[in-house]
């Protein structure tokens, strides 16, 4: 029997599942003219969820259901930002869904379920919880990608995502079964303790490789990145923004739980498999940085460009993770949060500049934006320089931290690879700024921002936050560091 304490620890998740079900019923019950209420209610649901996460946060790490579920500082940071960013995405999504007549209710309910999946994933205390969270997240995402039924691109993306995603899930599960075979446990702490004494080192290593395949797929790190460009481009932009931002937090959380809690080195001694996976992740990092940045150079579609840029950003996230100590994890988490905020703004911008019948997806569509809408051009400039990692914008400090973590781990070469990749990446971000500011608008096109006031306001706040956090990033860093210090 679960005790009342267990339930209290899971309160935010339970609340969100119930609320999502209520929203689903409400959407079916409301008349077509009243469905706007679902939108505001879903945002409220998420914000209350965020409040529950923070207010019920225990002073130190606690577990529920016999260690299946962990609620600690790491989970708090990741959940809070996932919920808040998803709430922002809902604001961006409203004009998009409304103009294209994409069903409202399903979008909100599925996204909330996916968010619950994220929350389980980042709180996983055992292999089973991790896998359940992942499946809840990805199954909801497959449906979300296919939400625009009439679009063949959207359906194609959904099929690709589903086939590759199912394969990756299978790999992950296969790896988990090997780890279970070697350590006789599903609990991550028990696995960690059992690694030292196990006779099945080879089996364990095989399991590790398969699990890293699954994690790499979820992150979108090369060479498991093939799905990213097609899915990003084909999905409705309102879904792309969710996959491209909040889900990156989940991927980091999953990597942290499985690799660090499950197989990392305990403080002060090499007792886990960290030396093995450090090298594997370093290879993934280098490949992601190279492939992501080089292929992004030749893109003409903005969503595809951002897709390849994601791959390179996941490379940076791994550069920090490779440090395999609290410093590296906190740098990596900081990077995940900063990237999620920035990419939410980037895709939000695409939504705000698009309207029914005109998707502002090509880089050339932004031509002369500074003459038509100087404010949004300025915001996009902030977003691009943040992605490129130019100070004083937020994105720079994430890069600074991961490069520092690599230098401190004695991997100067990896930091240098990261530095070179930043120069290559700079070019395509500058190209976006170039078309906005230096080119004349194309005759006959009319790119302008949506009339939806909340979306414009939230996007402005989101992009300005990149500038403000570029000066006031200390609290977030302290928070990330404290999460891993305990």
């Amino acid at each position, binding site marked *: 029997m679960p005790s009342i304490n267990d339930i209290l620890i899971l309160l935010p998740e339970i609340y969100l599942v119930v609320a999502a079900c209520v929203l689903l019923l409400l959407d079916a019950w409301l008349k077509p003219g009243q469905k706007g209420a679902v939108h505001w209610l879903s945002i409220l649901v998420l914000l209350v969820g965020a409040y529950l996460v923070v207010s019920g946060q225990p002073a130190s790490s606690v577990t529920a259901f016999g260690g299946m579920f962990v609620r600690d500082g790491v989970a708090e940071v990741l959940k809070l930002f996932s919920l808040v960013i998803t709430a922002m995405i809902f604001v961006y999504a409203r004009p998009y869904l409304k103009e294209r007549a994409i069903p409202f209710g399903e979008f909100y309910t599925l996204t909330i379920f996916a968010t619950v999946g994220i929350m389980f994933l980042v709180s996983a205390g055992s292999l089973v919880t991790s896998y359940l969270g992942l499946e809840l997240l990805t199954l909801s995402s497959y449906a979300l990608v296919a939400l625009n039924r009439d679009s063949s691109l959207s359906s194609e993306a959904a099929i690709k995502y589903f086939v590759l995603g199912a394969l990756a899930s299978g790999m992950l599960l296969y790896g988990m079964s090997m780890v279970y075979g070697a350590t006789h446990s599903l609990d991550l702490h028990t696995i960690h303790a059992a690694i030292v004494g196990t006779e099945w080192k080879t089996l364990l290593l095989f399991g590790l490789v398969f699990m890293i395949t699954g994690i790499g797929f979820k992150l979108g790190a090369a060479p498991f990145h093939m799905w990213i460009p097609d899915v990003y481009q084909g999905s409705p932009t309102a879904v792309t923004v969710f996959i491209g931002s909040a889900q990156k937090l989940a991927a980091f959380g999953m990597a942290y739980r499985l690799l660090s809690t499950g197989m990392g080195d305990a403080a002060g001694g090499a007792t886990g498999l960290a030396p093995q996976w450090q090298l594997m992740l370093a290879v993934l990092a280098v490949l992601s940085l190279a492939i992501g940045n080089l292929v992004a150079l030749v893109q003409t579609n903005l969503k595809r460009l951002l897709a390849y840029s994601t791959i390179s950003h996941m490379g940076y996230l791994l550069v920090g993770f490779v440090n395999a100590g609290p410093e590296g994890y906190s740098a990596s988490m900081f990077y995940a949060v900063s990237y999620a905020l920035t990419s939410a703004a980037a895709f939000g911008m695409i939504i705000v500049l698009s309207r029914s019948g005109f998707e502002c997806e090509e880089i050339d569509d932004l031509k002369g934006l500074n003459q038509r809408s100087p404010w949004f051009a300025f915001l996009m*400039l902030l977003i691009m320089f943040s992605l490129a990692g130019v100070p004083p914008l937020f994105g*720079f400090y994430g890069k600074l931290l991961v*490069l520092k973590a690599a*230098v401190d781990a004695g991997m*100067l070469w990896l930091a240098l690879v990261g*530095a070179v990749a930043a120069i290559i990446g700079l070019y395509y971000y500058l190209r976006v700024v*170039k078309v906005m500011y230096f080119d004349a608008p194309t005759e006959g096109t009319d790119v302008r921002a949506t009339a939806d006031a909340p979306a414009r306001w939230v996007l402005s706040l989101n992009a300005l936050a990149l500038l403000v956090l570029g000066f006031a990033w200390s609290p977030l860093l302290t928070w990330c560091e404290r999460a891993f210090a305990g």
Partner: protein
Amino acid sequence: MSNHLLSLLIWLPVVGAIPVLLAGNGRPGLARWISLLVAVATFAASLALIPAYDATTGTMQLNESMSWIPSLGINYSLAVDGISVALIILTTFTQILVIVGAWEIIQNKPHQYMAAMLMLEGAMIGVFCATDAMLFYVFFEAMLIPMFIIIGIWGGPRRVYATLKFFIYTFFGSIFMLVGLLYLWHKTGGSFAISDMAAVHLTLTEQSWLFFAFLLGFAIKVPMVPVHTWLPDAHVEAPTGGSVVLAAVMLKIGGYGFIRFSLPIAPDASQHYEWLIIVLSLIAVCYIGYIALVQQDMKKLVAYSSIAHMGFVTLGIFIAFILVRETNNPDAARLGMQGAMVQMISHGFISGAMFSCIGVLYDRMHTRQIKDYGGVINVMPIFAPFYVLFAMANSGLPGTSGFVGEFMVILAAFSANPWIALFAAFTLIIGAAYTLWMVKRVLWGNVTNKHVAELKDVNGREIFMLSAFAAGVLLFGIWPEPLVHLMDASVARIVEQLAITKV
């Protein structure tokens, strides 16, 4: 107030840019006046540095320190020495003239132009004030964004190519410097303070890596041969104001960086590779001078002459190692270093003035080709004397500021090695050749075509701008004492540090 003077200097122009932007495209007059007001206020505030700064000790003064990122040991710490004070005043002075110079010339979105210039000014002052390496880096990079926009929007036909090249080139240099700084952070045990980095012991191998990391960052900025190729493009395509700021201030940041980072942090590696820098500097002085000689485009000519003149700065800085460590002649080292600093300030005035003059001609004729001009003196009798004066200063005529720095560096070089001095002195010939030949072709002779015949002479605004530059050029040419005095003690401290080995 005085204990926040440096913060005021940095943030006044940055914050002042906001009302300029808000004035919008509809009220260009308002935007111009606000930006002029902000620039003048910043200049006035920078003059307050002179009484506030005690030039007799040469230490870092007017300290401000605030914890920025406590867990990484990054501080918002500012301080200035004599060299910084001189460069800050040069920056704020130039800025006023840039805004005056752009007054009616920039018609396309003047508010954005002025705002970008003011933000650029704040970042440049920040570079000269920062005593925390990470803060320095942030300002150093933040500078690129407004300059990128300035060249890209208001530049010439090939502006996009030039501005991308400028940004990527500079970013390329500085990112390796960032990795170097992170390595130093690791070595110092968690401090980004430049003084801590200077105090930490490093092997020659470590120093060499760091030296080259810094060299890449600063040599591109100066720029030194062979990483100078972005400069002619950027200068030619930039609007007049962009060229003026680029030449007068941004290039100096490279020389400033050598003094702040390379010399104190990697002194032994600097000594080890001094020959490299000296050879590259002499190539800049001689070979780039020849390249300037054959230019058809006035802006390109001045751009190449800038590279040649900046060669003196790097030469003056690095011969100090020969003088201090090999011939044991610290006085000559001080003279050379002093000369390098005077050359930085003087080149700021002269190159700013030359680009402004070319801007005046370009605004009327819309061409920078030397062959399109001829006999300009006949139609612009007020403008011509200014042009001649700046050209003379550019070729290092005694009595102008251009002479002082070069002469000091050549004297010091003579003590180090007469051959170096011989090659360096080459500039007096080649510099005179390319500058005076340009003057001959542009100003003298008969009016060559009807476009020149229709030229109108300079108006009051332009006279003000050129007179201000002329005042600077003549003042420091005839009476360099105040400038030398301001920087002398700080230079002496740097030379003392050179003698101390860190290995």
